[in-house]
């Protein structure tokens, strides 16, 4: 059995790996190791996810009945705003790239680290500086503008917009620098033989994301800075009372915030590709299309921001052009889903927790996609805009892209991060709870939206009560599932069974060429890559058909251990 293999392999000598080669808080806070920085981000984003999640439960609890249930309208407006702002800026945007990307990207391309390790650590500190600046504003005066900060409300409200805007400005640098680091790393640090067409699709996804991070984030930075200036110095760019134009703010804001959707979703596409590839033990159907369409989407994503503004007062001509472009970007995204499904065809499918999350994604994400088509359609967006249909739509996209892909990736790389397995049965139950809870929470919101229920409403007319209650019950199921995940992962962290080096029989370098926990510099010697990431039929080092190539697996664990799940 796998565990015995590991046990015999580990009893001989104490392993030196990236978790134990240096000890103490200082060794973590000053680390330059991309894997440790990934874990620093992991703790950070999980902290903010818990905060944002509790806020979400409060929002749903308040909406259990019409009228005041738990809190005042004022408090509710603060809470839904903070839920959005925290989830987007402090969880969704950093989650997959900064946690999973930092941990896995350098190993996947056969590098010792990212190109600029110090800059990488600096990004994490900048992230916290931005987060704390945001928190100063939130704690002292709250935030009640919605995460979108629409002017002129945001220039008039007495809540902490200025501090939060500055926080978002600072956070942007963290995002930009991480993107820059990844782009240089992918260009310059690939191992011999790691050609562009042999890059794992997760790396392609991160590469495309990095382009968006670098090009779009500065626009957000400028926008929130102008907003802060408007509040402090009354410069009159957005506020009509000062001669400004409030719709200009919306253009600026969505010019970033639509591409930001791709910052959240493109790395998720990458994670899904890895999961589908590994657990069906087959190449991704249309690898080239999946890889290059991510990059194409990254650029096209800049041309569709106006589809958030069909009823905002922009010209009908502009709306028409934005609508057409939106459809053109929708097609490659849809085709990716078909590619993943086709990859399962005649595969060898192993239903393990990470794949369950990928399958959940392949169920949830198309619903987000189809409803996105409805919202991109000029005539349909008019009644649906700013209703619960939109709320449900972006949760179907963000939660599938952000949360399901993140959880799938976390469960996939967990054994590599900590060298331990988690309880598979509990993990499958939790995945099911999350899937059911999510759909029960958000599907009724589509129906509410078609019936006209507007978003950001503290109170509602009694006709909507039943669907709101269903949605709130769903949020409890979802919360329960997430609680279960926290429980068994914590258990695994301290008491989990030791994991073999390649528990999934995966074909990428972090599984085939590192120890059960990677060493501080990942590889004993630089690996030489001779095949594509999903060429399982050529992966002798995993399956030992013929002779396992020991020269290329310089680790303590015999890689053949893997085939014995």
């Amino acid at each position: 059995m796998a565990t015995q293999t590991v046990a015999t392999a580990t009893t001989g000598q104490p392993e030196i790996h990236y978790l134990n080669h240096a000890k103490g808080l200082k060794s973590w806070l000053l680390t330059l190791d991309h894997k440790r920085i990934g874990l620093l981000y992991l703790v950070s984003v999980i902290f903010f996810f818990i905060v944002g999640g509790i806020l979400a439960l409060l929002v749903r609890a308040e909406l259990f009945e019409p009228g005041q249930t738990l809190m005042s309208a004022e408090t509710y407006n603060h809470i839904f705003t903070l839920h959005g702002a925290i989830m987007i800026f402090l969880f969704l945007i950093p989650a997959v790239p900064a946690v999973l990307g930092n941990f896995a990207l350098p190993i996947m391309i056969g590098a010792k680290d990212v190109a600029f390790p110090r800059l990488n650590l600096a990004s994490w500190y900048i992230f916290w500086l931005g987060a704390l600046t945001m928190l100063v504003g939130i704690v002292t005066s709250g935030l009640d503008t919605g995460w979108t900060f629409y002017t002129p409300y945001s220039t008039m409200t007495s809540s902490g917009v200025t501090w939060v805007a500055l926080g978002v400005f600072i956070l942007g640098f963290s995002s930009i620098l991480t993107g820059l680091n990844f782009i240089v790393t992918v260009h310059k640090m690939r191992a011999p033989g790691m050609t562009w067409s042999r890059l794992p699709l997760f790396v392609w996804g991160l590469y495309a994301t990095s382009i968006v991070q670098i090009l779009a984030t500065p626009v957000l930075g400028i926008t929130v800075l102008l907003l802060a200036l408007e509040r402090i110095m009354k410069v009159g760019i957005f506020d009509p009372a000062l001669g400004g134009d409030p719709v200009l703010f919306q253009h600026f804001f969505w010019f970033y915030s639509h591409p930001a959707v791709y910052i959240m979703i493109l790395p998720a596409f990458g994670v899904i590709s890895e999961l589908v590839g590994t657990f069906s033990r087959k190449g991704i159907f249309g690898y080239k299309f999946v890889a290059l369409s991510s990059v194409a989407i990254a650029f096209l994503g800049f041309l569709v921001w106006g589809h958030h503004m069909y009823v905002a007062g922009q010209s009908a001509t502009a709306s028409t052009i934005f609508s057409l472009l939106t459809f053109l970007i929708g097609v490659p995204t849809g085709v990716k889903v078909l590619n993943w499904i086709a990859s399962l065809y005649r595969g060898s499918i192993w239903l393990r927790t990470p794949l369950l999350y990928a399958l959940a994604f392949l169920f949830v994400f198309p619903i987000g996609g189809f409803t996105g088509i409805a919202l991109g359609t000029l005539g349909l967006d008019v009644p649906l805009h700013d209703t619960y249909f939109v709320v449900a739509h972006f949760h179907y996209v963000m939660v599938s892209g952000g949360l399901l892909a993140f959880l799938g990736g976390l469960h996939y790389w967990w054994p590599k991060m900590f060298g331990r397995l988690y309880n598979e049965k509990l993990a499958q139950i939790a995945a099911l709870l999350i899937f059911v809870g999510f759909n029960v929470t958000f599907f009724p919101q589509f129906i509410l939206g078609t019936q006209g229920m507007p978003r950001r409403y503290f109170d509602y007319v009694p006709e909507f009560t039943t669907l709101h209650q269903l949605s709130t019950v769903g949020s409890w199921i979802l919360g329960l599932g997430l609680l279960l995940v926290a429980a068994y992962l914590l258990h695994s962290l301290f008491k989990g069974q030791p994991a073999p080096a390649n528990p999934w029989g995966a074909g990428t370098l972090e599984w085939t060429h590192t120890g059960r926990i990677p060493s501080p510099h990942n590889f004993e010697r630089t690996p030489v890559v001779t095949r594509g990431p999903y060429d399982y039929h050529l992966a002798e080092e995993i399956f030992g058909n013929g002779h396992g190539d020991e020269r290329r697996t310089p680790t303590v664990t015999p890689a053949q251990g893997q085939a014995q799940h």
Partner: protein
Amino acid sequence: MAPEVDSLFQFWALVSTIIFIGVVGAMTYFVVRYRRRRRDEVPEPVKDKKAIELAWIVVPTILVLIVFTWGFRVFIRLYTAPPDAYEILVYGYQWYWEFEYPNGVKTTNELHVPAGQPVKLRMTSVDVIHSFYVPAFRVKQDVLPDRYSSLWFEATKPGEYIVFCTEYCGTQHSGMLAKVIVHPREEFEEWLESAGIPEDMPLAELGARLYREKACFSCHSLDGSPMVGPTFKGLYGSTRTFEDGTTAVADENYLRESILQPGAKIVQGYPNVMPASYASLSEREVAALIEFIKQQQ
């Protein structure tokens, strides 16, 4: 317009559901059919098939172009008012709607329209961005400060239809509700004739009407319960304690200041969120409101 929007929606829903069932069905079938049977099983690679890839790029492209074109035509119809439309002015306030008819009559939170005639709304906001949404008519348009936006509809059936504000506009955003009241054509004319406020309406009566029409009720109760703002019950003559610790007796001048400059003195325990737009009330209207508040003992 509603039937046109709805048939497009149904087309979209039908096509999406069929494709979705196909996709999830294929996924489920593959997962069951090709589940791993042996641990060291390595399936033969499947070659990329150009024809399949091309087909599933071309077919969705055609489908979305159909939806786009259809949506475009509906959109143009939704936003092109017939030239003979009956025009009503709409003002968005935090947090109520005011409507002004061609003969100068104004109503608050009740938009009266004739059935069977196109109605065009020319809309602007006095403060922040609002959005005028009538779900039953499938129309929506943001209402912006410092410029006009417009929408039109033709109500076919007399009755009452709810209006929501769908652009977040602050504390009482969800309380910013109105009604479209559709009258049979001839009754509408009658209503319009009788709707004006007589100039000699007694102050207290006018105050009660303003309390309702200016949506004071959404923040100030009459039964003593605290809402977003303090209750009007027993307000006149009581001693108020403010955020800075000072106190004052609520006399006529205090009430006047609180209506016209709501931020001047903030009562302890309440947020400073009352809109400044009440500064535009006439002297007589202010006096009427004060009279009304004085009666709430």
